[in-house]
């Protein structure tokens, strides 16, 4: 409850008209960002706990928003650094949904498998140079690993096991044509 209240408090402040319209001074905008960051961090404890109860396991899942905050610049410490990872998608909608997952990774060969013992088709798509060259971006990811998560149950989840293959030849990389 304490964690949720941090976000409740932040949202209360965000209802100020300056935060809604973006007409606050820059140092106030920075402070709003700080408050929201702290609230995200606090609530991630709840999401992780809820997910672990849903999964019925003791594995400590890490909510991506906590640890992949740079996904908007196609960067993620976990997916870039791990040889194997579990990716879990929670569908908040009241009906079955699907999602094309994009995970920032270094170039290589990857295998995506689902929870029914099946290999899921995946591909590597190059991250545009305009993103890779962003001056403040510190990431080893040069590609996004793309796969299709299908039939995620309403208010339910589906998980995938992603592993980096030892083979040095990339089997996922498509050919790109420049003009």
């Amino acid at each position, binding site marked *: 409850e304490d964690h949720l209240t941090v976000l409740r408090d932040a949202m209360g402040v965000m209802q100020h008209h300056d935060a809604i*319209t*973006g*007409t*606050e*001074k*820059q140092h106030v*905008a920075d402070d709003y960002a700080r408050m929201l960051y702290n609230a995200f961090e606090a609530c991630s404890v709840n*999401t992780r706990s809820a*997910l672990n109860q849903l999964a019925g396991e003791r*594995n*400590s*899942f*890490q*909510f*991506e*928003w906590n*640890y992949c905050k740079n996904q*908007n*610049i196609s960067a993620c410490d*976990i*997916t870039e*650094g*791990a*040889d*194997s*990872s*579990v*990716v*879990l*998608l*929670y569908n*908040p*909608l009241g009906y079955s*949904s699907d*999602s*094309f*997952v994009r995970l920032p990774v270094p170039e290589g060969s990857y295998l995506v*498998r689902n*929870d029914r*013992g099946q290999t899921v*088709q*995946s*591909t590597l*798509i*190059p991250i*545009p140079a*305009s*993103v890779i060259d*962003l*001056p*403040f971006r510190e990431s080893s990811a040069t590609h996004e690993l*793309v796969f*299709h998560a299908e039939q995620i149950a309403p208010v339910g989840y589906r998980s995938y*096991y992603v*592993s980096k293959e030892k083979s040095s030849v990339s089997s996922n990389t*498509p050919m*790109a*044509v*420049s*003009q």
Partner: protein
Amino acid sequence: EDNISIGNEHLTVLFDAEGFMSSIVIDGETHSLKQNYFWYQGAYGNNEEFRNRSSGAYIFRPNGTEKAITETVKVQVVKTDLVQEVHQVFNEWISQVIRVYPGKEHVELEWLVGPIPIDDGTGKEIISRFDSDIASNGAFWTDSNGREMLRRVRNKRETWELELQEPVSGNYYPVTAKIAIEDEHYRMALLNDRAQGGSSLQDGQLELMVHRRLLRDDAFGVGEALNETQFGAGLVARGKHWLIFGSSRKDGSPNLVAKERFLQNQVLLPSWTFVNAVADDFTYDEYL
């Protein structure tokens, strides 16, 4: 290849020789659909009277009409079974990925804009504009904070005779979820991932403002120019637009508005992605 295209079983997006999106093929019919980035120069005033205020945090007030960002676009095409993409570079500070996923009836545009240069001493407001052959007759629809779609008519107000002094900003409306146009045959809708200003300044046209950097305060209270920086440079913004184009037939089989609603749910309430790096001894069998 001279003619680039990406697509799936529902649609094909065509690009011209200059690298711009030029048309879309739906149900075997080709429709003109151009997309480009433009910029408005922010107005500079002395703020002493209302008619002489600068463009700033509170008001969008361009000085004149829009200017095209570029005449040619560098492109890279990536085609796979899971996604087809065209990576476009408009200039040093605007790039975009246009992608189509199999089975999907929309086109995704992921834009990257910034840092907006100001070394020429002018504030700039950047828009993404779509030009179609839809005879929209001055009307367009914008959402109202995600609720009902409101009909807007260019150069018109509901309850008084309008004599518009500022034809661009006077026709801009807030768009927090969707902006759309249609005629009796076709309909085009744009969904966005954040609140933006938008309009339809010509029939068949939709535009959304994606980024702005201004050098004057507009004297409405904030006391600062809208000139944010990070690491010593202007902000870079990255976001998405989702484009749906198709038949506007209300009583026919494809109800485009319903598809837009489902897409809106999917993109604004997407599946939450959790990632967990696992130890070497946590094998796939153990995972199963």
